[in-house]
């Protein structure tokens, strides 16, 4: 009996190892889809006119945000929120100052898409990360995991949706460019094919030594993003908290795939549990 139990324990331990210990499987670093488009924002060109903020609201039929500054008189969003998919923030420290545009980064390997149960968050045509309310249960897990805190929830509504920049995909479908890049009077935010934007950014860096922090944010950060940034002040100061290069879903999906092995492991464990129970029962019977 004791020996049996030991062998049983061993099988159980083996099963546990099989299913639980993260057998991290190599997960390829993703690359942008071939049709990827994006935005390139350059802090040295932005004058903070917020034309893009207004244009974004119009193009997306967003209500004004009167909760912030001005006692209800102004549409003055204090950050991305349920009324605002795009915002211009100001960083100032002594003499140093910079504007920074915030909207969805359209990650190459997006955490929000990895999170969403039914694919309400979806990386589709042009690599745009889109949202479909019909498949959304409002769990807000996408908000929890987005490293840029982009998705916002309509807290004030009884039938809330998630609000985030979808790179004006309704305009892209009509062959138009996003509203924000279209209206920018200074070319501070431009729209284009991802590969072209990257080449453009590299060229600006090469031609203007000393003008920028020598880095294109989004080229490699967090697995890469289709919205790219050039800046004359350190990116951390603009609110980019994370400088690591690993895509956020990398670890979780490696573990998950390692553990589940295409669902073979749970099936094996189930069979094992059943088998052990049958054996125990038979032993119980024959003991009589």
């Amino acid at each position, binding site marked *: 009996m004791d020996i049996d139990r030991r062998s*049983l324990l061993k099988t159980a331990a083996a099963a546990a190892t099989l299913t639980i*210990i*993260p057998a991290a499987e190599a997960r390829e670093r993703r690359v942008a889809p071939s049709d990827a488009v994006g935005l390139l924002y350059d802090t040295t060109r932005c004058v903070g006119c917020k034309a893009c903020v207004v244009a974004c609201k119009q193009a997306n039929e967003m209500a004004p945000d009167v909760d912030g500054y001005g006692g209800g008189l102004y549409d003055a969003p204090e950050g*991305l929120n349920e009324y605002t998919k795009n915002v211009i923030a100001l960083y100032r420290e002594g003499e140093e100052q910079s504007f920074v545009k915030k909207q969805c980064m359209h990650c190459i390997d997006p955490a929000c898409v990895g999170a*969403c149960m039914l694919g309400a968050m979806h990386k589709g045509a042009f690599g745009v990360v889109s949202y479909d309310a019909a498949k959304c*249960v409002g769990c807000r897990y996408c*908000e929890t995991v987005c490293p840029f805190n982009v998705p916002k*929830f309509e*807290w004030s509504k009884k039938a809330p949706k998630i609000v985030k920049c979808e790179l004006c995909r309704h305009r892209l479908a009509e062959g138009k460019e996003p509203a924000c890049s279209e209206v920018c009077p200074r070319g501070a935010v431009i729209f284009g094919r991802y590969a072209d934007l990257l080449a453009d950014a590299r060229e600006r860096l090469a031609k203007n030594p000393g003008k920028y922090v020598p880095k294109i944010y989004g080229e490699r950060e967090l697995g890469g993003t289709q919205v790219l940034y050039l800046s004359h002040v350190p990116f951390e100061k603009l609110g980019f908290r994370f400088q690591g290069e690993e895509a956020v879903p990398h670890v979780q999906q490696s573990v998950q795939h390692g553990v589940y092995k295409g669902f073979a492991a749970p099936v094996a464990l*189930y069979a094992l549990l059943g088998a052990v129970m049958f054996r125990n029962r038979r032993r119980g019977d024959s003991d009589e």
Partner: protein
Amino acid sequence: MSRNFKILLLLAAIGIMLIIRRFAIGLGASTALSDGYPLGLWIALDVVVGTALACGGYAVALLVYIFNRGQYHPLVRPAILTSALGYSMAGLSVAIDLGRPWNMWKIPLYFRNWNLNSALLEVALCIMAYVCVLWIELTPAMLKPSRITRFLDRILVWIIALGMLLPTMHQSSLGSLMLLAGPKLHPLWNTPLLPLLFLITCLAMGYAMVVFESAISRRHTALLAVLQKIAVFAGIAFVALRLIDLALRSRLSIAMHLDLYGIIFWIEIVLWLMPAMIANPFRGAMCIALAGGLYRFDTFLVAFQPGPGWHYFPSVSEMFISIGLIALEIAIYIALVKRFPILGGMPAQEHSRVAQAFQPAPRHQETT
């Protein structure tokens, strides 16, 4: 009705009224949740801690059916009942927390849209299935023998096996959930071992709950010492895993830094080790339940760092809804235990083939 029972009902009634209000005025107005802290008390406490405390059924089932310790069989039924109630309440909390609960039915049925990378999908499907499994496991105690119970009886082995597979899957995946928060999770809590640590905590907390129940109902106290040993062992294993993992990834220095996070981290560790020093199984179980609860709560709320400017402290509504649901759960437990043969182990009049086969291996029981 005793006075305590009336208090439970009162708390439950307040909770239910606040739940109705939550649907009338929306999530924003009734909670302190924000875009920085989109998940709050309901998820961290009622779901993540609550389902672990509801793992008594899982833990005892493993002991009885897999490790063949038949002497624990009398503990199975009360444990399964608390599990069924705990998981049902967790499911209810999720429905209250979801912004668009009317789309919930799509989760199991829109299988063509399933995102198989989503740990949350797995958690949701497994919990839905597990709630059903738990109530099915209880039917022999609640229904008169009929064709349905006889059918269930025949397939009970596979249902019980499912009742062990599903918690293994979703309890570990609850840990994976926060793995995806990645850089937003404090480095002391963010580790690829999260799924394993969550699995260990749910088992330890499950055994702790069984110890509580038995101690409170003053039954089967002789069996508790062994359960206590399991919990002690789980606690030590948990601490060892966590420290070795941190050491291997050179993060121990972060734990030495005694800011809020460092202090909470060490409180968790000490709580896990306490039962090894306490002889009283009841107090030991209390420490384990606290240690595991704190660890899980911290992973979802305290160690979650959405960035500067965000704060969260649950609103009064959130708290009273949580309290109300817990009160409701306890009230239903008391009512069911009085009405059905649950606490006494197997009632004599029951003619369940499978259940009999699962009686303790050397079977001399004439009684109970």
